[in-house]
C-alpha cells in the first residue's frame, strides 16, 4: 500500500453516478467466481449430496409378479409387468460412471470382444466427462439414468426425484445429444429385493415413462473379491440369459477390467452374446435424439461444468500463488525491516560526515483547508530546524490563504494561484523556495517539532535525492481509524523499510517528504500525468540514479478518512494512480544504468506487491466462504486463523518497531473480515477503470480538522483532538 497525500480536485460533481458501477462490476466478478466454485462443488457431490441408505423393510405391498419376475420392470401401464433377457444373451450393466480412468478401459475390452453393454451413469459424472458418454453411444452401448448425484430415492420427495432425472437427462443431452428411457435406482439389486420403500418410487418412475432395470446377478466387483470370484458371481447358470451388475467407477476397477477380459471370450465360447438391453429384448433402441432448445440447454450445462472445473483449477493455482506470495512478502518484510531498523538505529550511524543544519523550505499546498491550515502552520512554527514556510493556495474558496495571512507569522509566505491542481501548486512553491532542500507536506498534516530536522538528515549523504517520512494516523479512535492506523504502521515500518533496503521505494508520501531541489529540477518537477504525482516523481528520481530513503523518526500526523465513502475515493485514486505511474515508467524495464536497475528490480516488485497480489487476495476469502459452507469446515477455520496469526505477528512487529502501543491490534481480526475486502474491490475497480480507459473523478475529503497537534510524547495513544477548531 502506498501512503501519501490526500489529493483534491475542484471536480467534485457527480459522485452518485459512479455508485452503481463501482460496486456492480467487482461484485459481479466475485459472485461469478463463487458461483463457479459452487457449481464445481455440486457436480463433485460436495453440495446437496445425500449419503443415507435405507435399510431393507417389509415387502408385503410389492406385487408377487414383481418379486418373482424378471429384472426389467415396466410400470408404465396399469398393471406392472416384468421382462427377462432370453437365454444365451447377457446384458452387462455398469453403474456409477463414467470414470475418466476405468470407463475407457472397460470400453476398450468391450470393443475388442465386439460386445455391447448398458452404462447407468450419474448426472454428476456425465457432466464432467461428456466425451465418454459420446464414446459409449458411438460404440453401440446404451446409456441409462442412475440419477444426478446418487441419493437413495426412497428418502426423496417427488420433486427431488423429478429433478434428479431431468438433471441426469440434461447431462446426457449435453454430452451426446440423446435422451434415454432406461433407469436404474441407486442402491438397487434384484427384483426380489424390492420393498415397501422402493416400490412406490419404482411405480412413480414408471409413470414418468421409464423402464426400471435391476439385475439377475451381482458381480459385487466393488468389494474387489478377485477376478475369479467376480466371474463366479456374475456367471448365469444353465445358459440362462442375465443382466449382470458391475461398476466402472467409484474406485480401483482393475479387477473388473481383468475379469471382463476373461469373462467375455469364455462366455462367447459357451454361445453367449453380449448385447445392450434393447438388442437383447429385441426392442427399439432406448435412445432418442434430442434437438432444439433441450439440446442447447444440455450443451450449455456441460460447458458450464467444464468451465467451472477449469476455473476452479485456476483459482486453486491462484490461491497457492497468492498464499506463497503473501508469506514470502511477510518473510521478506520481517527480515529486511529488521535489518533496516538495526542499521539506522546503530549508535554510530551517520548519514554523512556533517549533520544537515542548513535551512530548508517547507511547501504546504492547500486547497480549501480552512479547518486545518492553522494547526498545520502552527505545528511548523515549533520546528527545531530553521525553515521558511510557503503556503500555496490553490484557488481555495474558503479563505484558506487569508487565514494564514491573518496569523501574521514571520517566515510564512502565502502564494496564491488559480486552481490548477496539486502538482502545479508544488511546482509554483518550488519556484518560490529559497533553499536547496524542499520539504513537502499536506495542508491537513501536523508535524512534530523534530520532524523537519529528522526528515532532512539523510541529505548529508550526497547520493540521497528524496526522503520519505513516517505518516501516522491522528484520528485512530474509531474502528475505521484504527484499521487505517494498523495499515499505516505496517506500511511505514515494514513495507517502506523493505523498499529502502531494496532501493526501490515507490512513493514519497505527500503528507511528509523531502526532496533535493537539484533532483527535482533534473526530472522536471512535479507532473500531472498521473493521479499519484508523488509516486510518479519518486519513480522519476529513482530512474535518475538518486537514492530514496526512509526516515522513521520524521513523524507527521495526518487525518485519515472517517467514512467508507471517503476512504473509497482516496484509495481508488491511490491504486489507480500507482497503476498509471507504473505504466508511465514501464520504459525503465529496458533502460541501462540506474534507471534500468529500478525498472528491472523495483518496478516488478512494486507491481507484484501493490497491483497483482492484492488482486489475487480475494481468493483467500472466496475459499474461506466455500470451505466454511461446503468444505472441511474445521480445517478452513484453522487455516484462516493461521493466516490471521501471521498477520498479527507482522503487525505486532511493525508496532514494536514504531514503539506504538499494541491495543489497536484487537481490531485486526475484524479488519480481515471487513476492511481488506473493501480494498480489493477498490483495486478491482481501478483495474476495470484502467482496462476500460475510464476517467477518474474524485472529491475532496470532508475535513474535520481533528488533528491539531502531534501527541506530546511519541508513541502515546490519542493525539490531542481539538473539536473546537472545527
Amino acid at each position, binding site marked *: 500500500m502506498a501512503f501519501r497525500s490526500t489529493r483534491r480536485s475542484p471536480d467534485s460533481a457527480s459522485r452518485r453516478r459512479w455508485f452503481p458501477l463501482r460496486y456492480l462490476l467487482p461484485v459481479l466478478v466475485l459472485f461469478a467466481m463463487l458461483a463457479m466454485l459452487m457449481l464445481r462443488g455440486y457436480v463433485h457431490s460436495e453440495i446437496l449430496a445425500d449419503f443415507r441408505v435405507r435399510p431393507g423393510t417389509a415387502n408385503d405391498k410389492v406385487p408377487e409378479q414383481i418379486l418373482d419376475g424378471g429384472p426389467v420392470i415396466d410400470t408404465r401401464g396399469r398393471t406392472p409387468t416384468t421382462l427377462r433377457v432370453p437365454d444365451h444373451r447377457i446384458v452387462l450393466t455398469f453403474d456409477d460412471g463414467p470414470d475418466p480412468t476405468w470407463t475407457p478401459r472397460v470400453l476398450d475390452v468391450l470393443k475388442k470382444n465386439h460386445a455391447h453393454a448398458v452404462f447407468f451413469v450419474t448426472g454428476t459424472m456425465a457432466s464432467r466427462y461428456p466425451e465418454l458418454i459420446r464414446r459409449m453411444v458411438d460404440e453401440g452401448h446404451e446409456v441409462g439414468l442412475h440419477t444426478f448425484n446418487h441419493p437413495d430415492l426412497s428418502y426423496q420427495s417427488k420433486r427431488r426425484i423429478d429433478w434428479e432425472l431431468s438433471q441426469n437427462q440434461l447431462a446426457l443431452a449435453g454430452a451426446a445429444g440423446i435422451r434415454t428411457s432406461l433407469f436404474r435406482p441407486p442402491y438397487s439389486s434384484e427384483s426380489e429385493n424390492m420393498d415397501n420403500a422402493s416400490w412406490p418410487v419404482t411405480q412413480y418412475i414408471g409413470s414418468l415413462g421409464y423402464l426400471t432395470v435391476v439385475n439377475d446377478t451381482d458381480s459385487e466387483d466393488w468389494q474387489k473379491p478377485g477376478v475369479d470370484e467376480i466371474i463366479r458371481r456374475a456367471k448365469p447358470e444353465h445358459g440362462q440369459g442375465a443382466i449382470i451388475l458391475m461398476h466402472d467407477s467409484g474406485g480401483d476397477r482393475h479387477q473388473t477390467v481383468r475379469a471382463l477380459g476373461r469373462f467375455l471370450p469364455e462366455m462367447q465360447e459357451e454361445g453367449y452374446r453380449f448385447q445392450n438391453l434393447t438388442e437383447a429384448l429385441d426392442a427399439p433402441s432406448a435412445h432418442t435424439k434430442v434437438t432444439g432448445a433441450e439440446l442447447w440447454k444440455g450443451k450449455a450445462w456441460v460447458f458450464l461444468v467444464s468451465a467451472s472445473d477449469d476455473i476452479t483449477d485456476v483459482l486453486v493455482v491462484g490461491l497457492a500463488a497468492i498464499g506463497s506470495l503473501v508469506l514470502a512478502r511477510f518473510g521478506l518484510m520481517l527480515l529486511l525491516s529488521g535489518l533496516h531498523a538495526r542499521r539506522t538505529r546503530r549508535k554510530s550511524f551517520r548519514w554523512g560526515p556533517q549533520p544537515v543544519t542548513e535551512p530548508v523550505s517547507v511547501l504546504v499546498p492547500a486547497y480549501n483547508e480552512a479547518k486545518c491550515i492553522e494547526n498545520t502552520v502552527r505545528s511548523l512554527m515549533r520546528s527545531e530546524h530553521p525553515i521558511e514556510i510557503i503556503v500555496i493556495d490553490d484557488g481555495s474558496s474558503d479563505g484558506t490563504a487569508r487565514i494564514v495571512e491573518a496569523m501574521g507569522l514571520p517566515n510564512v509566505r502565502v502564494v496564491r494561484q488559480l486552481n490548477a491542481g496539486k502538482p502545479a501548486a508544488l511546482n509554483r512553491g518550488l519556484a518560490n523556495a529559497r533553499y536547496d532542500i524542499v520539504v513537502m507536506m499536506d495542508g491537513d498534516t501536523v508535524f512534530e517539532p523534530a520532524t523537519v530536522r529528522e526528515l532532512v538528515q539523510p541529505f548529508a549523504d550526497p547520493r540521497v535525492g528524496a526522503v520519505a517520512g513516517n505518516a501516522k494516523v491522528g484520528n485512530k479512535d474509531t474502528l475505521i481509524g484504527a484499521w487505517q492506523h494498523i495499515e499505516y504502521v505496517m506500511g511505514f515500518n515494514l513495507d517502506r523499510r523493505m523498499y529502502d533496503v531494496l532501493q526501490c521505494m515507490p512513493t514519497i508520501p505527500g503528507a511528509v517528504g523531502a526532496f533535493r531541489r537539484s533532483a527535482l529540477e533534473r526530472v522536471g518537477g512535479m507532473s500531472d500525468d498521473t493521479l499519484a504525482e508523488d509516486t510518479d516523481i519518486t519513480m522519476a528520481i529513482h530512474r535518475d540514479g538518486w537514492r530514496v530513503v526512509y526516515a522513521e523518526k520524521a513523524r507527521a500526523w495526518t487525518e485519515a478518512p472517517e467514512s467508507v465513502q471517503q476512504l473509497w475515493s482516496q484509495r481508488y485514486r491511490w491504486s489507480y494512480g500507482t497503476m498509471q505511474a507504473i505504466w508511465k515508467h514501464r520504459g525503465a524495464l529496458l533502460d541501462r544504468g540506474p534507471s534500468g536497475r529500478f525498472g528491472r528490480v523495483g518496478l516488478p516488485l512494486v507491481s507484484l506487491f501493490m497491483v497483482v497480489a492484492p488482486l489475487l487476495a480475494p481468493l483467500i476469502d472466496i475459499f474461506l466462504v466455500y470451505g466454511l459452507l461446503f468444505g472441511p469446515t474445521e480445517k478452513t477455520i484453522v487455516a484462516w486463523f493461521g493466516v490471521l496469526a501471521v498477520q498479527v505477528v507482522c503487525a505486532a512487529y511493525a508496532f514494536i518497531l514504531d514503539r506504538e502501543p499494541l491495543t489497536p491490534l484487537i*481490531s485486526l481480526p475484524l479488519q480481515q473480515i471487513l476492511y481488506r475486502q473493501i480494498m480489493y474491490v477498490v483495486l478491482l475497480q481501478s483495474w476495470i477503470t484502467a482496462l476500460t480507459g475510464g476517467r477518474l473523478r474524485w472529491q475532496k475529503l470532508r475535513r474535520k480538522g481533528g488533528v491539531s497537534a502531534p501527541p506530546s510524547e511519541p508513541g502515546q495513544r490519542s493525539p490531542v483532538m481539538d473539536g473546537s477548531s472545527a
Partner: protein
Amino acid sequence: MDTQATPPYPFPPARQEAPPMTAPPGVPFGTSEAPPAPVADKPRRGPVRDRYFDLLRAIALFRVVFYHLTGWAWLPVVFPSMGVMFALAGNLMARSLKRPPLQVVRSRMRRLLPPLWMLGAIGVTGMVLQGWGPDEDGHPGWWWLHLTFWIVPLSDPPYAEGVHGIHGILGDDWAAEIAGPLWYIRAYLWYVMLSPLILKALRKLPWPTVVAPIAISAAFEFGYLDFLPGERFPSALTDFSTFGACWILGMAHQEGVLKRLPRYVVPSVVPAIAAAGMWYAVTHGFKAGHDLDDIPFAQALWSFATVLMLLHVSPSWSEWPRPLRPLDRIVTLLNSRAVTIYLWHNICILIAATVWDQMWRVDTLAMNVPWLLQSLWPVLAITWVLIGSCIVWFGWVEDLAAKRAPQLWPDGSPKRGGRRSRARSHRA
C-alpha cells in the same frame, strides 16, 4: 448521558413527581427515573427520557411476549431481551444512586413489588380455591414460609403444580405459567439490593467488576460450583451470573466506563465474544426447545456481547428521529406498563391459545381454514388484546406504587392525565 435537558422548572413541583410531557411515568423496569420532589428550593432539571433506551425496552418486551408464544429458538438470538432489560435497569439504577443508597433501594422495591402483589393476590387466591394449601407437600411450615416469597421474592414464589384450568378459557397448569416469569423479578430484586455494592466495585475496578458475573457463570458451567446446596440457591445464582454482566454494563455505561475506551475497542471485541457464545451454544445442543435459556453460559456471553454493542451504539435520542416518531405512543405505553405487561403476559398467552383452540369446534372453520386455526398470528393478536385489558385492569397499581395519580392508558397522549405536566412544561 449528554442529552439535552428540558428547561429547568421555575417552581419546584409540588408533591407529585411530574415528568415532562413526552415522558410517561417511570416504572421500576428501568424506565426513566422520576426523581422525588427535591428537598431544596433550587431549580432542577427535569428527567429526560432517552428514547433509544425506550425503544430497546419496548422491543425487548415485545420480543419476550412473542417468544413465549412461539418458542422460536432464534428469537432470543436475534434480540436477547432479558439482557437488554437488565442493562437498561442497571443503567437507571446507577443514575439513581446519586442519592443515598438505602433510599434508592427502598424506592425501587416500593415500585416493583405492588404489581407483583396484585398478581399474587389473584393468582394465589385462584390456586387456593383449586385446593392448593399448606398440606400440599407435607411441610405446612415451609409452605407458609415460601408463601412469603410472593411478598418479597428473595427466592422464587411457590405455585400449585398441575392445577386444572377452566375449560375453553384457561388452559391447565396455569399456575406454572403465572410463576414462570417471576425469576426475573427475583433476579431484579437482588440486583437492586446489591447495586450500591456493585457501584462501589465498579468505580474501583471497572472491568473486573463487569466481567465477574461471566466468570461466575463459567464456574457454574464447568462444574466448580456444584457443591451449592438445594435448588433455590443455585438457581438464583445462575440467573444472577447469567445476566449480571448486562446489569453491570448498564451501570458502567451510566458511569462513563465505556466512553473511556477508544471507540474501536467495543466493535472489535464484541464479535469475538458473540462468536464464542454462539459456538458454545451450537456445540451444546442448540435447537428449538433447547435454546439460549437452557445454555446459561452461552446466554451470558451472547447477551453480554449484544448489550455491549447496543450500549456502544447508544445514540442518546432526547427526541425521536423522524421515521420512528409514529412509534412514540406505543413505545411510551409499553414503557409505562412494563411490569404489568411482563407479569401478566404469560397468562394472557395461555388464555389466548386456549380460546383460539375453541375455534376447532366450528366445523366450517376446521374444514376450510385449518391453517388459520393452526396459525400463531391470531393468538398473538388476541394475546395483545388481553394484555391491553390487563393494562387497564391492573396497570394502575404501577402508578400507585410510584405515588402517582393512576392512569388507565398511559401512552403519553395529551388527552389523558398529561394535561398537568403539559401545562407545567408550557410555563417552563
